[in-house]
């Protein structure tokens, strides 16, 4: 063995590095960026943005009733399911899988509220803000994955 590895500094550094990196010089603690997932999140965010714009006009009106929006919920749920299955197939996506499951619960709760009926737009505002926070956070995470050091 090379004499330099007998130095305590060398041994310490090498031990740390060997834990993280045996044959590859890049450490990966979390999934790779997935462009399809990113696009799907943006697409869903647009759908919800359109939903909330419509609700601004339709809350309390017959056009805003749940029955008129059943297809919207079906569509969003299908998209979430596609995303869920895709991410199950990608390694180290535990956080993304939890995020998707959390978003599914938000959709369920929004649907419950919609079934009960929105009489004014005021009732929609806290939900809109919560979902905007969720999408902003998801996009922030996607951006971090995308711009990680290569």
């Amino acid at each position: 063995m090379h004499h330099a590895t007998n130095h305590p500094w060398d041994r310490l550094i090498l031990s740390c590095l060997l834990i993280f990196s045996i044959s590859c010089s890049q450490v990966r603690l979390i999934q790779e960026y997935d462009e399809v997932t990113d696009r799907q999140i943006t697409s869903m965010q647009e759908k919800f943005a359109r939903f909330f714009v419509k609700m601004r006009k339709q809350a309390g009106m017959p056009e805003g009733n749940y029955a008129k929006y059943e297809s919207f919920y079906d569509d969003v749920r299908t998209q979430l399911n596609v995303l869920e299955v895709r991410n199950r197939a990608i390694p180290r996506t535990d956080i993304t899988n939890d995020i998707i499951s959390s978003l599914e619960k938000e959709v369920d709760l929004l649907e419950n509220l919609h079934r009960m009926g929105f009489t004014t737009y005021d009732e929609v505002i806290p939900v809109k803000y919560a979902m905007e926070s969720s999408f902003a956070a998801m996009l922030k995470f996607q951006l971090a994955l995308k711009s990680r050091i290569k």
Partner: protein
Amino acid sequence: MTLTDKNRKDLLERMIEAAKEVLNSSWLEVKPFAEQEFSHFTDNLKLIQELTTAGKITQEQARNQMEIQKESMRLVILCIRGVGIVAAENTLNAIIEVIKTPVNKALGWALL
């Protein structure tokens, strides 16, 4: 109980402290985003409280509204955790990049 501005400020500070403990070294990276989202959360709680107090929503609706806020906060924290892991990974890879040449040179072969 009324959610006063002081209550909201206390709640916000407690949330930030709790997040700091969990995120440790990655905290600085995610701090501005986390603080902004926690602040939105407390604003939303106030809106729900106002709707309930004004009798605009039923208790059941208020419960559903609260559940959405909780789920959204859970999702935000998961994303913050993800961003923190990427930040830690970036730090580690930057360190490896810096020591790559001297380590390889010291060993006499390309380990890194």
